[in-house]
């Protein structure tokens, strides 16, 4: 009975996020603009200039990487925005509702994951329009695994959220925690070989594992696999599971505690 009530709350909180997203035209437009810049312009120009020397199609490389990055980042940023939200709109309601604080966190992860998946549908449509060379069979087998980077991003978001005081605004902190990961995670550049400092940093950035995991599934069994992928899918999944568990439990614990003990 209790459990049923909490599950009900998780679905409600998640659905609200998703409905809000599909009603917000500006946000939907924004989800098209970013892949347009990164895949269309950056990926396109790198492919024309460097494509031949790397030994694989650069546009496809960036395109698949962007999917991993979007799933992670969109979920993470959605969760972090709870800091801003709790001062306004319906989020205030969630905190006085008779539901467990854990359900609020899980509901947010669920909802923001659905938003991230919807954004990826947008990216794939865009890839179709600009005719990125895609193996659709490989793309299809990617679908059931797309939730994995979302969950990782969600757990990362909760950990960041838990450590943000209300005085620090999301806009201030965001560039520091997301943008470096953008480049360290190898969305736009191969990171198999890196100078020592960058190598360490890139392996610390959680987004790296999202991007690499998605690529490992997509490229599995292709000749490019060994040139592109860092960890095989099973190893990737194991690493992600460990990070996810640590981030989510620690993050939720801190979040619930900090939320009340100000």
């Amino acid at each position, binding site marked *: 009975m209790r459990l049923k009530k909490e599950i009900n*709350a998780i679905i*409600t909180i998640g659905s609200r996020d998703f409905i809000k997203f599909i009603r917000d035209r500006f946000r939907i437009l924004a989800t098209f603009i970013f892949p347009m810049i990164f895949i269309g312009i950056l990926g396109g120009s790198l492919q024309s200039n460097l494509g031949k020397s790397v030994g694989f199609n650069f546009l496809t490389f960036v395109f698949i990487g962007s999917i991993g990055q979007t799933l992670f980042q969109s979920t993470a940023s959605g969760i972090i925005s709870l800091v801003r939200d709790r001062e306004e709109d319906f989020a205030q*309601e969630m905190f*006085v509702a008779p539901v467990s604080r854990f359900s609020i966190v899980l509901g947010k992860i669920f909802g923001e994951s659905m938003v991230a998946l919807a954004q990826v549908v947008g990216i794939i449509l865009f890839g179709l329009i600009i005719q990125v060379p895609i193996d659709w069979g490989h793309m299809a087998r990617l679908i059931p695994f797309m939730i994995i980077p979302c969950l990782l991003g969600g757990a990362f978001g909760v950990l960041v959220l838990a450590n943000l005081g209300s005085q620090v605004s999301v806009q201030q902190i965001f560039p520091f925690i997301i943008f470096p990961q953008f480049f360290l995670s190898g969305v736009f550049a191969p990171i198999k070989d890196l100078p020592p400092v960058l190598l360490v940093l890139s392996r610390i950035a959680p987004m790296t594992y999202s991007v690499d995991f998605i690529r490992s599934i997509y490229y599995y069994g292709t000749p490019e696999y060994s040139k592109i992928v860092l960890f095989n899918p099973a190893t990737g999944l194991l690493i992600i599971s460990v990070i996810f568990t640590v981030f989510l439990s620690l993050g939720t614990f801190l979040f619930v505690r900090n939320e*009340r003990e100000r």
Partner: protein
Amino acid sequence: MAKVIEVKNLKKRYKKADKNAVDGISFSISEGEFFSFLGPNGAGKTTTISILTTTLAKTSGEVKIGGFDMDREPNKVRGHIGVIFQNPSLDLNLTAEENIRFHAVLYGLYTFRPAFSMMPDSYKKRVYELAEILTIEKDLFRPIKTFSGGMKRKLEIVRSLIHKPKVLFLDEPTSGLDPISRKSLWDYLQQVRKEQNTTIFLTTHYLDEAEGTDHVAIVNNGKIISYGTPEKIKQTLVENYLLIDSPDRNKLKKELQEKKIKFLENGQIKVPLTKFKAQEVIKKIDTELSVMQIHAPTLEEAYVEIIANSMEKDKS
């Protein structure tokens, strides 16, 4: 009457603060009571309301709401209260019905369904009833962006009552509303109170709204400095006086002096109503009057004086 809120020696010190934001306050509220909690900005009102609505942990003290202990059964407490926040808590991109539905589901009244048409009939009936009260039948399925400020507030109140809370917390519910919206909101709240016997805990800056409440607590610097019915609080002021004037003021003053009626001259003639009643003063005066007005203190005047006194005490 049964106590629905009991607060004993409640204290809150924020992290890194060197003094208590709430400094040992105690009060209790009976079921069905209309209670107002007043005080200047920074007095500890919002801190208190945040603790009572379970979003902020207290430092020490005891709080019981609806018989449930705040520490041991926070979810039971949450299930028995409704909260109207200072900032609007509606989702503007959602329709009025969705705002109500999400609330009802979070409070465990119904199982979530992604569309109104899939919800049970009892829910639909309830929503149509509420829409009728709000006269938003036509706009029920439209995003509430287009609603007026007063309309949104009313919708929030309707929404917060759907789980039949024992206590409704209203944190400055009418700030930013025009006088007509304010009036209509209060009429509605009074009606709800009568019908459902809901206890109301109000914080407000409009003292006239607190005038009609059962009890008033005035806080400053985290302490309750005055408590009682509005009448009792007003009695702490001796500001009952008769204001009179005459075309021939000197003649009036002379007459008052002869008849040993004390007065103050301050623009007009002020006769404090301590020794005599207004009626008695008027009977004694033969001089022609041009102004005649009985002045009784308002809660606002009492409030201003009480706060000013408390500030002076703090200084010394």
